[in-house]
């Protein structure tokens, strides 16, 4: 059985953010919105989880977006068309539970924008109205708003410095739209932890159901190690088998934030040795 995962297309979304279309038919055949893959690129390398941005069962492809944040992601970003991943395992995690009616607002921050795309497509297929909010620090870092536009009724771009679209955070735009009577019934947000926390606070205050996709440290991704455990309400759940999408209003973001920093010292050292600034 062939499990080779070969890159058939690569796009530079920003200087440090790359999109890869990977031929991995075995992974694509059962993929669903909200899931992720675990990849490894060298024999001495670590296993890292990456959200699935797009999948095509017909083409046998999985699309992923990777941002260079450390040594391993830098190695991934350096891969070129025609090269293969050493390991490419998935699809992992649960399919995100999506509604069948209403008006969903999808919020993507930074490279998290990629991960909301499969949700948009499935929501539209189900006849749910989709509004997308895409945020970044500045206009050069806004990514995939064009892709998202293909499966959204409207797309709103936000930049912190106002260089493109709305000036301010995604939550500011979310509130503005809600105040203007958008009538959102569901919210799904993927992005940096502070952004997801802010979305959780905003939607909680407004009584809008919201889910976020967590990206904690992970080893196997199959429920074996428990390293990705997160406190959700009164429960400790594993992001790999119970998530990665969780009720935003129940997630303990303080704990999740702290756990993400577990190996900061080692990560800094690895980056330094690889000659990467952080």
């Amino acid at each position, binding site marked *: 059985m062939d499990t080779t995962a070969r890159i058939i297309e690569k796009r530079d979304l920003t200087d440090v953010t790359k999109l890869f279309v990977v031929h991995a038919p075995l992974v694509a055949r059962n993929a669903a919105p909200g899931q992720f893959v675990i990849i490894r690129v*060298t024999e001495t390398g*670590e296993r890292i989880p990456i959200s699935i941005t797009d999948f095509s069962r017909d083409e046998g492809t999985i699309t992923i977006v990777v941002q260079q944040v450390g040594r391993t992601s830098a190695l991934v970003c350096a891969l070129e068309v025609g090269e293969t991943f050493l390991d490419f395992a998935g*699809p*992992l995690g649960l399919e995100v539970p999506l509604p069948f009616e209403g008006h969903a607002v999808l919020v993507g921050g930074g490279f998290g924008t990629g991960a909301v795309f499969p949700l948009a497509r499935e929501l539209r297929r189900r006849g749910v109205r989709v509004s997308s909010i895409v945020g970044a620090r500045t206009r050069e870092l806004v990514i995939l708003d064009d892709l998202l536009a293909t499966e959204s009724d409207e797309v709103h771009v936000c930049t912190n410095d106002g260089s493109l679209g709305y000036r301010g955070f995604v939550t500011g735009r979310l509130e503005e739209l809600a105040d203007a009577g958008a009538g959102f019934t569901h919210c799904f947000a993927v992005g940096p932890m502070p952004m997801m926390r802010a979305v959780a606070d905003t939607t909680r205050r407004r009584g809008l159901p919201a889910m976020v996709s967590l990206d904690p440290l992970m*080893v*196997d991704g*199959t429920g*074996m190690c428990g390293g990705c455990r*997160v406190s959700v309400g009164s429960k400790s759940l594993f992001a790999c088998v119970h998530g990665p999408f969780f009720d935003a209003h129940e997630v303990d973001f303080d704990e999740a934030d702290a756990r993400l920093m577990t190996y900061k010292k*080692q990560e800094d050292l690895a980056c330094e040795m690889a000659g990467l600034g952080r």
Partner: protein
Amino acid sequence: MPIVYPHKTEMPCRDPEQRRHSWDEVAEGYTVERAIAEARRCLNCQDPVCEQGCPVNVPIRDFVRNVAVGDFAGAAATIRRRNLLPAICGRVCPVEHQCESRCILLGRQEPVGIGRLERFVADWEREHGSGGETTAPDLWRDQKIAIIGSGPAGLTVASDLAQLGYPVTIFEALHAYGGVLRYGIPQYRLPKEIVDEDVAHLTALGVEFVRNVIIGKTVTIDQLFDELGYSAVFVGTGAGSPVFLNIPGENLKGIYSANEFLTRVNLMRAYSFPEYDTPIQRPRRAAVIGAGDTAMDAVRCSIRLGADEAHIVYRRSEQEKGARAEDYERARDEGVIFDWLTLPKRFIGDENGWVTGLECIRTELGEPDASGRRRPVPVPGSEFTMDTDLVVIALGTNPNPLVPQTTYGLEVDGHGCIVADPATGATSRPGVYAGGDIVTGAATVILAMGAGRRAATAIHEHLQEEATAKQPT
């Protein structure tokens, strides 16, 4: 009658002080002279009851007799009739509860060192070759077998069925083969080269290994039958899901499940960071909760990662511990401190979310509980706090739910274990067999192999019947 020395022939071990800082194998194994001396202690019983204590019924008396006369190749061939992983079993079997517990010498003197002899024979064979080259069997049959999980159960089923001429595929979820032999058992106890060689041996038999396939996610069991053309499936996915204590502070940084801790160390080689990319917390004072084999592995790894002090914290007493005698003794020699009758109550952390301490309460043993062991009862007012910067929770595992969740008609029990006939491994779903920890809950390598052996026989019978039924009459 031979003269029988009352004690097992010593197996040389590296010095405890030196091995605290090394991942090299601790036990060095018998020399030829020691092996022969030990084999000569065997009385060659007419009725070798030791063999009944072996889950795969290795012809123990015969192989020991081979060793006694210096016929090591013959010994290897004798073992291989029943056990294809002797180098592994000779290292990790809890012999004191199995073969050696039945040895006729026991009571008057120490039993024959069967485990040590098995290891000696396997290592001799690895070094010298078996004499006859393994010829790959002709995989002539058209009924394909899918095996889920490349741990000891799956490897055994694969070997047995390949030798019967079935094309066999082993699907592994991780990027390396061997299951618990790979991610669980540390290098100093089971060098990974041995696992590599056993996998290579099966590859030479024509077994197909496929990694990065998570059955239940990448492919479901239904798809194995309906779309990929497999005629039978064996589920040997192990006891995958870690048990936590569910006490306050458990998600502080520096607290690991044994599965995570050992996987980082063994599979990912975090001890070689930054040469290897996967990091791990380097401890000063480690506390490992539990007293089974996995706990011993974790606590000895913590020493090798640099802990000055390493504790085993266990709510019952020394008597109830689950660990193999040999590993318990070696842990003690390496300086592990054992806090028996100690029950963790909560974890204490600092302002950055790192664990700094473990609050415990002393216990005493009361009436026996459901497990038959005396129940630990907290002693009021005996609370105390132990400083620690690394905690490993080694309280066992629950079955991984991925396969049962995604397979229609597969019956599981209240613990989530797949229900399988102990004699055949047959599950509630025709054509699907299961064995090892996914059926029994966390147990041993050799028990998993025994289950694999029985399942292989049953799968062969089932497929023979199916093939006969299909033939035109």
